[in-house]
C-alpha cells in the first residue's frame, strides 16, 4: 500500500499509511522515488532517513515500501568499480546524468548485460554445504571470483551450467533441498547492516605488511585486525590510508571515502590504474573497490557507506581472500549519525552524539577478523579507520569509542607534520597490541632478532625524549658523551628510518627484508660507536668515517642495489671497529 508524506525536516521524512512498515526497510519517497530507510516507527507513522537531497519534496507526495532492508548487489563486476554510499555506480551515473548527481537517479549497481566466463567446479549430484565453492569467474587479472552456495542454503546440485559466458542474472546452478529447488545466479544480495556469517573467528597472527617502516616495524597491524588513525587535519591521515591501499599485501582493497574530499577520490582514480601491485605487477585497480560518498553528498548515504564497504569486504573474505577496508573518515560517519539523530529529536549523549554511538562503532569494527569461513578455508577482513577529532584532541567521543575497540593506534602528531616528518605517526604514544602475537611470524619469516631490534630501537627513541627534556634545561654541551650518542642514533632512526617519503618512487615502499636490513645496520652502527665510547676513543675519530650520509641514502636505494650499498657500510663499520681495536 502506498503511504503519504506528512512531514519533512532535511533528510528526515515522516510517512503515514504504509502497511506494516518494518524497521530498516527501504522506502521510495515522492515522485522521484528517492531512496530512504525506515529508522523509527511511531504508531501509523514511519520515520525515514532519505539517502538523497530532499529539496523540493512536498507534503502529500507518495511513499512506497520496498519490503526489503538496505542491501547491496554481490557478484562479479565489483572490483574496479566506484560506488556511492548506497552502491550506485558513479561512472554509470556520469554517463546518464552528466557532471552533477541529481536526486532520484536510478542505476543498477552491477552491469546486467556484461557476460562473465564461468567455470564449474562441482559435478551434478554433489551434496554441497553453505559457502561451498561451485564455480569461478575470472573477475580481473588478480581476482578469481568464487561462486559460492549462499550462506543459508545447502542441498544437492541438480544442475550446473557448463563452462561458458553468462550474465549475472542467468541461472548457473539449481540446488535441491527437501524437494525445494533454488536457482543460483552469479549475483546475490545481502543486507548491509547484517554481518555475513563465518564458522569461527581466529586469532590474527600474520601481519598485514604495508611497506611502511613505522607501521611494519614499530606498530604492525595483523591480517584481520583493526587499526585506528586519529589525527588533526593536515597530519597526513589520508596519505597513510592511500599508502596502505596501494602497498599493503591484502588481496582485495575496499576504500571508503566517507564524507571527505571529492578530489581525494579523483586522486585515487587517477593514480591507481597506473600503479602496479608490488607482488604481481598487475594494475592496483584490479584489486580495488572504491566507495565515494564525499562531504557534499547526502549525509544519510554517508552513514550507510561504511556498512556498504564492510559488506563488500566480507563477501570477498568469504571466498578465502584477505581483504583490507580503509574507512576515511569514521568521524564523518559518526557526525552523520549525530545529524540524523538530532533530526529524529533523540536525547543526545556526549557532545550531541547519540547514546548508541559506542555500540555502533563497536559493531562496525567487530565485523573485521581473521576467520574460518563457511567452506572451512581461511579469510580475513582488516579494518583501518581514520578518525578526525576536532582540534586534534582525542578526548572526544568518536576517538575514545574507537580506541576502545581497535587494537592498533597510530597517533598522528601535528608537530611532526609541521616539521614535515611523514608519516607523522608519533612513536612515543602509538601502540599495537598485535606485536606479541606477530613476533613469532617475524622470527620465523624475517629474522630471529627482529623483536629485539624493534624493542631496542623504540627504547632508544624513548630515551631520546627524556634526554631532550634535560637539554631544554642545561643545553646540549652539558650532556655526557653517552647521551649525545643516543641523540645521534635516535636522529638516525627518526630521519633515516621512520620517515618515509610517499611521493618518492623508491622510498614509498620498503619490503620487510629491506626494513630489517636497514634497522639492523643502524643498530650495528650504534653498537660500534658505543664500543668506541666505552674505550674512550674520541668521537671525532669515529665520525671521520663518513657513515651517516650513506645510511641516509638507504631509503632511496632500490631493493636490487641494497645489498651492494650495505656491504660498503659494513666495511665502514669494520673501520670503526678497527679504530676501536687500535685503542
Amino acid at each position: 500500500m502506498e503511504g503519504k508524506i506528512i512531514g519533512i525536516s532535511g533528510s528526515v521524512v515522516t510517512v503515514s499509511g504504509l502497511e506494516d512498515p518494518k524497521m530498516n526497510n527501504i522506502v521510495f519517497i515522492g515522485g522521484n522515488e528517492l531512496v530512504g530507510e525506515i529508522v523509527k516507527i511511531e504508531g501509523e507513522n514511519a520515520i525515514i532517513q532519505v539517502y538523497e537531497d530532499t529539496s523540493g519534496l512536498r507534503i502529500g507526495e507518495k511513499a512506497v515500501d520496498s519490503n526489503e532492508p538496505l542491501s547491496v548487489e554481490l557478484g562479479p563486476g565489483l572490483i574496479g568499480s566506484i560506488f556511492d554510499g548506497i552502491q550506485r555506480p558513479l561512472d554509470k551515473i556520469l554517463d546518464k546524468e552528466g557532471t552533477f548527481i541529481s536526486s532520484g537517479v536510478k542505476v543498477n549497481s552491477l552491469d546486467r548485460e556484461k557476460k562473465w566466463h564461468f567455470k564449474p567446479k562441482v559435478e551434478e549430484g554433489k551434496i554441497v554445504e553453505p559457502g561451498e565453492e561451485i564455480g569461478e569467474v575470472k573477475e580481473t587479472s588478480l581476482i578469481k571470483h568464487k561462486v559460492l552456495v549462499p550462506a543459508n542454503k545447502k542441498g544437492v546440485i541438480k544442475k550446473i551450467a557448463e563452462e561458458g559466458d553468462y550474465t549475472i542474472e542467468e541461472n548457473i546452478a539449481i540446488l535441491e533441498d527437501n524437494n525445494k529447488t533454488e536457482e543460483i545466479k552469479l549475483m546475490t544480495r545481502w543486507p548491509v547492516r547484517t554481518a555475513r556469517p563465518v564458522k569461527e573467528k581466529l586469532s590474527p597472527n600474520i601481519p598485514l605488511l604495508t611497506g611502511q617502516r613505522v607501521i611494519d616495524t614499530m606498530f604492525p597491524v595483523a591480517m584481520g585486525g583493526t587499526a585506528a588513525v586519529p589525527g588533526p587535519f593536515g597530519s597526513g591521515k589520508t596519505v597513510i590510508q592511500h599508502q596502505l591501499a596501494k602497498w599493503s599485501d591484502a588481496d582485495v582493497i575496499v576504500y571508503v571515502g566517507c564524507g571527505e574530499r571529492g578530489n581525494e577520490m579523483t586522486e585515487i582514480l587517477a593514480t591507481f590504474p597506473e600503479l602496479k601491485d608490488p607482488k604481481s605487477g598487475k594494475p592496483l585497480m584490479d584489486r580495488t573497490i572504491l566507495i565515494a560518498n564525499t562531504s557534499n553528498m547526502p549525509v544519510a548515504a554517508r552513514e550507510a557507506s561504511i556498512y556498504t564497504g564492510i559488506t563488500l569486504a566480507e563477501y570477498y573474505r568469504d571466498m578465502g581472500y584477505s581483504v583490507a577496508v580503509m574507512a576515511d573518515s569514521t568521524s564523518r560517519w559518526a557526525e552523520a549519525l549525530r545529524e540524523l539523530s538530532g533530526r529524529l529529536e533523540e536525547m543526545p549523549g556526549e557532545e550531541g552524539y547519540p547514546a548508541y554511538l559506542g555500540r555502533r562503532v563497536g559493531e562496525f569494527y567487530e565485523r573485521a577478523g581473521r576467520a574460518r569461513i563457511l567452506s572451512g578455508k581461511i579469510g580475513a577482513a582488516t579494518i583501518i579507520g581514520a578518525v578526525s577529532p576536532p582540534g586534534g584532541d582525542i578526548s572526544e567521543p568518536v576517538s575514545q569509542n574507537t580506541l576502545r575497540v581497535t587494537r592498533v593506534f597510530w597517533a598522528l602528531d601535528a608537530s611532526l607534520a609541521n616539521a614535515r616528518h611523514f608519516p607523522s605517526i608519533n612513536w612515543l604514544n602509538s601502540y599495537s597490541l598485535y606485536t606479541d602475537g606477530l613476533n613469532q611470524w617475524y622470527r620465523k619469516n624475517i629474522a630471529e632478532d627482529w623483536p629485539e631490534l624493534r624493542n631496542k630501537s623504540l627504547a632508544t627513541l624513548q630515551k631520546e625524549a627524556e634526554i631532550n627534556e634535560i637539554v631544554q634545561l642545561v643545553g646540549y654541551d652539558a650532556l655526557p658523551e653517552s647521551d649525545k650518542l643516543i641523540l645521534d642514533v635516535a636522529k638516525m632512526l627518526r630521519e633515516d628510518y621512520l620517515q618515509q617519503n610517499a611521493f618518492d618512487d623508491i622510498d614509498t615502499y620498503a619490503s620487510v627484508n629491506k626494513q630489517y636490513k636497514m634497522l639492523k645496520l643502524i643498530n650495528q652502527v650504534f653498537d660500534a660507536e658505543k664500543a668506541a665510547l666505552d674505550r674512550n676513543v674520541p668521537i671525532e675519530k669515529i665520525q671521520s668515517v663518513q657513515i651517516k650520509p650513506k645510511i641516509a641514502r638507504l631509503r632511496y636505494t632500490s631493493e636490487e642495489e641494497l645489498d651492494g650499498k650495505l656491504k660498503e657500510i659494513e666495511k665502514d663499520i669494520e673501520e670503526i671497529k678497527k679504530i676501536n681495536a687500535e685503542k
Partner: protein
Amino acid sequence: MEEIEYKTIEKVTNVLLFVKDVKNAAYNEQVEIELETGKKISGQVLATNEDVTIIQVFGETTGMNTKGTKVKFKGTTFKMPVSMDMVGRVFDGLGRPRDGGIPIFSDEKMDINGNPINPYAREEPSEFVQTGISSIDCMNTLVRGQKLPIFSGSGLSHNKLAAQIVKQAKILAEKQNFYVVFGGIGINSEDANFFINEFQNSGALEKSVIFLNLAADPSMERVILPRLALTTAEYLAYEKGSHVIVILTDMTNYAEALREISAARDEVPGRRGYPGYMYTDLASLFERAGKVKGKEGSVTQLPILTMPSDDITHPIPDLTGYITEGQIVLSRALDKSGIYPEVDVLLSLSRLMNQGIGKNSTREDHRNVSDQLYAAYAKGKELRSLTEIVGEDALSKTDKQYLHFAEEFENRFIKQEFNEDRSITETLDLGWELLSMIDKGEMKRIKPEFIEKYGKWKQI
C-alpha cells in the same frame, strides 16, 4: 504550481516564522512574506509537517505579526537567473542589484544549492597558479580548482594578501577567460571598498561579479550569499568555460549566521553552540570548487576566515581545515615584526601541491627545495626558543647556522612587497641562496644531483 497565500501565522521569532496548516509545502521552497505595510521579504521553508511549516526569513522580522502578515508559497526552490550581464556588477546577499543597475533577467535559472559534483566526473587539479608570493608558490602551491582558505585573525593582512593574489594570478592567465567572483559576507564597508578599489586598480573589476552583504545588512542573507556566488562561479566556469577565482570573506560571519538559525530552531547545539551539521553545510560550499571532465573551466576558492582569538582549534577553522585542500595561516607574531605577508609556513599546507609542481610545471627541484626549507625553518624556530633559555653561545656551529637561516628566511623569503611579483624561478633561486647559509651535509631532503645543479655553496 500556482502560488498559494496563507495568513495562518502562528509564531514569529527574530529569524523564523511558523505557519499553520500549510497544504503540501515543499522542503526548501521559496516564500514571499508581505507585511501589513506592503513591504515584501523573502524566505525559505526549513521544515514542514501537516500542522506547521517553519520558514527562515531572509531579513528582519520587524513589523511581522500573526494577524495581517501574509505568506505566499512560490512553488519552487531558490533559483537564480544567470547571464554574462552579471559581470562587472554588484549584488546584495539575495542577488538584487546593489549598484543601482537593473536586475538580471535570463531564461537560464540555476538552483543555488546546486547538486553535488559526481566524484567520478572530477578531474585532478594540477595546473600551477603562480601567485608571485614566495611563501605560497614555493611552500604551499595553489593549483587551479583547489579550495585553499586563508586562516587569519582580526587585524591581520588577509584582505591585502587576497587582493595581491587576485592581482598577480591574473597576469599569468590573461590570455584565457578569467573571472573573479567576490562574496563579502558581513564585512564592513571599508573592507568592501578596499577590495573594489584594488580590483579597479588591477583591472580585475570589469572581470568581476561582486556580492555584498555588509555588517549592517540582514544576517540571514549571509547564509544565501555564498551559494549565489558559487552558482555564478559554476555558471562562468562550466557553462562559459572560464577560470574563476572565488573569494569569500569572512566565513566566520557565515558560521555565526548558521548558528543563529540553529539556535532559533532550538536544535541541539554542537561544539561552542554551532550546529552539529556545520561540517556538512560548509562542505556543501567548499566542495563546489574543482575541475570537471570534459569542461574547459575551473572554480578555485580562496575563502577567508578570521579565527576567533587566533585559535586554530576553534570549530570554524577546524571544520574548514578538514574540508579544504590545505590552508594558508597568517601569524600575528610575524605581523608584529613587520613582515608582510605574514604567512606561517609551518602551519600552512597545500594538499594539491604535488600535482602542480615539478619538472613539467615549475621546476624539478621544487619539492626537494620546499621540503628542505620547511625542515630548516622548523629547526631554526625550535632553536630560537631554545636560545631564550640557554643563550646562543650554547649552540653548536650548525645550530647557529639554522638560527640565522630562520631569521633570513623570514626577512627575505616570506617578506615581500605588496607590488612585488616573484616568478617561481626567482623564488626557488632565493630558496637555494638561503639554504647555502647551512652546511651542505645537512641537506638531507635534496637529491645530490639537484645540489650539484642548483646549489649556491661556495666551492672550497
